């Protein structure tokens, strides 16, 4: 293991977030040149990776780790192996180009510099999160970065937040990817617990074989499928095109949507043997490839066309990585690189067209190719690579895929099914590649009289064109001299699946794969030929409800269900809440009481006649309180109960309690009377949501429960044990110098409790004072009559209330 430079990867990830934090400030003075500053982070990463690559490609990954929560063994551990190097090429290499491209893209930006600062900040934060994701060597760290990319993607899609459609698309992307991510987290935990480690390199080297780990592996697929826009979760990706084009080129074609692919690539060599993995991954991948290709053929928006193309290509990669076979993995790495190059270039080209002509609608674009020949050349090269034409890198990728499934080590029908599917998907790819080139650049004698644009639009600057041109040049170079990436691809495939070396070449001789390629091109040309009838066919069959309808339905259902649940559990009625709480408090402990062998009987009817008499008096007073409808009588009854309880305290042998109770009860009655002077003499009799029967039932249940609890609590003092209180009695004089043990407990043994009690009283007193003083002030204001708007609904203000009150109090006195 390489120990040198262990901190560098972590510092590079951190650098992204530091720049993201300062970007909004920088944008104020730098304007759109802030993107150059942001480009420093991915550029530095790419340069470091290039410098470190010789050792890494020799099979010596760079490890870096930082204690995060050492107490539970959680570390931020990063690992740069050869496959991570490929991902860095995408994330940081293409990332740098995207930032440079953004400077021109926002050339005639309508928004303010503040908007630009926010955008640059989010884009840089995304680049950092994505870098962390592909370097993470710990499942939980990977998950954190995974969700960070979802969140930054949400913010970037919703960049034009004044548009409702952009907000809806952002929310959809977040909901779909984040819910998949949650399922994946459950899978991670299952795998991590089964393996005994969350370190990815460790658990892949020594994979857990339990059934739970297998379930965990299948659960992680949910995260991969949602993130990489596989059918039926693909719907968020076309919606994400609401974002500015640099975001589409970066997040939604080159990097973030590859996170799911990345995860599959890491896991498939180990987990592909799990029952259900291959049928699921290969089936979903193939379906995605075909469906995406079909949908791409009916788009009129250049970006949407590319988005469905991306969906299709992601399915393609899924079919290769998902098999978990050495040769397929090798082919998949090639495809990953090829797709990143041509698709990012195509998005940038679409962005240039959009920027120069102010439309992306292929029904309006005409003559762009003649007007901007350099752009057309770049776009056509990239599209040809996508179509899989020689001598471009995309051709080599497709050849590798065919070659793989021509002799794949899979159960009987799979290789044939996959081959047919891949050829069909590639035919569609050829057709939509043509559609892109034709749509963006061709001269169109339009049947429909739309307002055509393009022939007279200004040509793009060289700086604007340079990033896609660079990618297109790379596509050509790697296509003609594929040996240049041989080492990288082999090392990456080796790091994933331990493959034997395969050498890339443009020309393998007349092989079956070449024949399939020729068939693909032939069928593709045929499909282009019949595109009009084919399109009409799609229009007729395209209407059935799909994932979008399911998504909308589930959102509506969620709203309705949550409204209904809220309506039931949160009725807004205090007594209902109280009744629920009280009944819960009764029912749960009751079940414990029922489990007791027997309820101890009371030791006597009463201590003496006096206790019996006072008890009877209290019961009478308390029960009368229920029926009393007059406030003052109620307070009188409450006072009687209180004094009665004080007498019981005396009889029990608690003079201090009795004394306090007498004093407090007297005070209480005084306070009650002070307040009740203002209130009407009788209680309100308005009906209540909680019915009378329910109230009586609740009260009865509480009473019965407390009765039995009192019997059990009173009867469970063990005779044999010595009460803790004897210690208090023994030490009272000696340690605290007091004879009255209750007092000693309060002021000495448990002095802090008393301090807390006094604090509570002070707070209550402050509260009372504030409420009374505030009420008085309000009263004063209303008295002057200059705040008529404060009057209550019934048309009487507080001042009138006062007068009325006086009359009522007078009436009460007469009674």
């Amino acid at each position, binding site marked *: 293991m390489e120990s040198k430079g262990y901190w560098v990867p972590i510092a590079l990830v951190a650098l992204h977030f530091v720049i993201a934090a300062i970007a909004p400030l920088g944008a104020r003075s730098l304007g759109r040149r802030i993107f150059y500053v942001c480009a420093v982070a991915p550029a530095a990463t790419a340069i470091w990776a290039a410098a470190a690559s010789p050792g890494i490609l020799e099979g010596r990954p760079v490890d870096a780790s930082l204690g995060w929560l050492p107490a539970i063994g959680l570390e931020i551990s990063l690992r740069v192996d050869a496959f991570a190097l490929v991902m860095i090429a995408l994330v940081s290499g293409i990332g740098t180009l995207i930032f440079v491209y953004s400077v021109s893209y926002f050339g005639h930006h309508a928004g303010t510099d503040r908007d630009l600062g926010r955008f640059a900040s989010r884009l840089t934060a995304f680049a950092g999160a994505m870098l962390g994701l592909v370097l993470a060597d710990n499942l939980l760290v990977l998950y954190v970065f995974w969700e960070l990319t979802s969140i930054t993607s949400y913010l970037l899609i919703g960049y034009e937040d004044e548009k409702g459609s952009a907000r809806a698309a952002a929310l959809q992307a977040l909901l779909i990817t984040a819910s998949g991510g949650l399922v994946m987290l459950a899978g991670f935990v299952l795998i991590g617990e089964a393996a005994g480690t969350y370190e990815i390199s460790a658990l892949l080297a020594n994979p857990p074989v339990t059934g739970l780990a297998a379930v965990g592996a299948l659960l992680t697929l949910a995260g991969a499928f949602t993130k990489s826009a596989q059918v039926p979760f693909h719907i968020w990706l076309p919606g994400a095109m609401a974002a500015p084009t640099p975001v589409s080129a970066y997040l939604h074609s080159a990097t973030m949507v590859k996170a799911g692919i990345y995860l599959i690539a890491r896991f498939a060599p180990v987990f592909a043997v799990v029952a259900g993995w291959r049928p699921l991954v290969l089936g979903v991948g193939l379906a995605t490839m075909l469906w995406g290709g079909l949908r791409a053929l009916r788009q009129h928006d250049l970006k949407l066309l590319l988005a469905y193309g991306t969906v299709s290509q992601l399915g393609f990669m899924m079919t290769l990585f998902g098999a978990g076979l050495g040769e397929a993995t090798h082919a998949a790495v090639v495809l990953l690189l090829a797709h990143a190059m041509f698709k990012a270039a195509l998005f940038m080209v679409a962005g240039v067209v959009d920027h120069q002509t102010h439309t992306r609608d292929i029904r309006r674009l005409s003559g762009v190719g003649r007007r901007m020949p350099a752009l057309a050349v770049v776009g056509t090269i990239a599209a040809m690579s996508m179509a899989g034409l020689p001598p471009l890198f995309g051709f080599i990728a497709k050849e590798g895929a065919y070659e793989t499934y021509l002799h794949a080590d899979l159960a009987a029908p799979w290789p044939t099914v996959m081959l047919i599917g891949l050829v069909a998907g590639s035919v569609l790819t050829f057709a939509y590649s043509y559609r892109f080139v034709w749509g963006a650049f061709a001269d169109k004698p339009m049947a429909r009289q739309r307002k055509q644009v393009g022939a007279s639009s200004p040509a793009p600057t060289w700086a604007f064109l340079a990033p896609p041109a660079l990618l297109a040049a790379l596509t050509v170079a790697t296509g003609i001299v594929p040996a240049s990436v041989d080492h990288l691809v082999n090392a990456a495939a080796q790091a994933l699946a331990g493959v034997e070396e395969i050498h890339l070449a443009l020309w393998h001789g007349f092989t079956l794969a070449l024949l399939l390629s020729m068939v693909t091109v032939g069928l593709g040309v045929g499909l282009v030929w019949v595109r009009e009838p084919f399109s009409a066919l799609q229009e007729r069959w395209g209407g059935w409800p799909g994932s979008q309808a399911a998504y909308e339905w589930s959102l509506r259902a969620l709203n309705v269900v949550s409204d209904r649940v809220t309506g039931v559990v949160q009725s807004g009625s205090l007594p209902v809440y109280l009744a629920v709480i009280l009944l819960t408090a009764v029912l749960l402990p009751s079940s414990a009481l029922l489990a007791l062998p027997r309820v101890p009987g009371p030791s006597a009817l009463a201590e003496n006649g006096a206790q019996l008499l006072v008890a009877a008096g209290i019961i009478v007073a308390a029960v009368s309180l229920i029926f009393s409808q007059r406030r003052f009588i109620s307070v009188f009854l409450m006072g009687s109960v209180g004094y009665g309880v004080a007498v019981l305290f005396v009889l029990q042998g608690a003079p201090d309690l009795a004394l306090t109770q007498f004093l407090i009860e007297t005070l209480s009655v005084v306070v009650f009377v002070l307040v009740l002077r203002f209130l009407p003499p009788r209680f309100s009799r308005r009906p209540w949501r909680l019915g009378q029967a329910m109230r009586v039932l609740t009260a009865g249940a509480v009473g019965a429960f407390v009765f039995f609890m009192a019997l059990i609590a009173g009867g469970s003092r063990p005779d044999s044990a010595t009460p803790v209180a*004897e210690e*208090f009695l023994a030490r009272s004089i000696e340690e605290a110098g007091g004879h009255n043990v209750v007092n000693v407990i309060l002021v000495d043994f448990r002095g802090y409790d008393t301090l807390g009690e006094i604090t509570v009283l002070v707070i209550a007193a402050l509260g009372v004072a504030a409420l009374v003083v505030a009420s008085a002030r309000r009263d004063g204001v209303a008295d002057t009559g200059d705040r008529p708007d404060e009057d209550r609904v019934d048309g009487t203000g507080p001042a009138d209330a006062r007068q009325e009150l006086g009359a009522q109090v007078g009436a009460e006195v007469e009674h």
Partner: protein
Amino acid sequence: MTLALAAVVAVLFAVGTYLLLQRTLTRVVLGLAIMGHGANLLLQLAGGRAGQPPVVEEGGGTAIVGSAGGAGFVDPLPQALALTAIVISFGMTAYLLAMAYRSWVMHRSDEVEDDVEDRRIARKATTADAAGDGR
């Protein structure tokens, strides 16, 4: 513990609960006060039978009722707990009454009202259901 005490505690709790579930704020406060009395009595009841007040003399005995047989002191611990509780519940009663007073000054009502917002949500759910049925 005697049956009489247990009965008083049970009745106080039942009455307190009933008053707590009323609409008028004054009755709610009364209910809390009554429940508080019940709780304090329950503490004493759990402390054992009646006995001598826990006031010790130099060189005197320290036996507690029930533990060494025969008459002794009453357990002082529940008394200390109850003493605190009495004072605290008075603080709460005073605070609630101040709120009732303010509610009266502000709204001329000392009633606990239903939460309008919650009611609106509940109504919305039912109307959404109706709309859903209509589709």
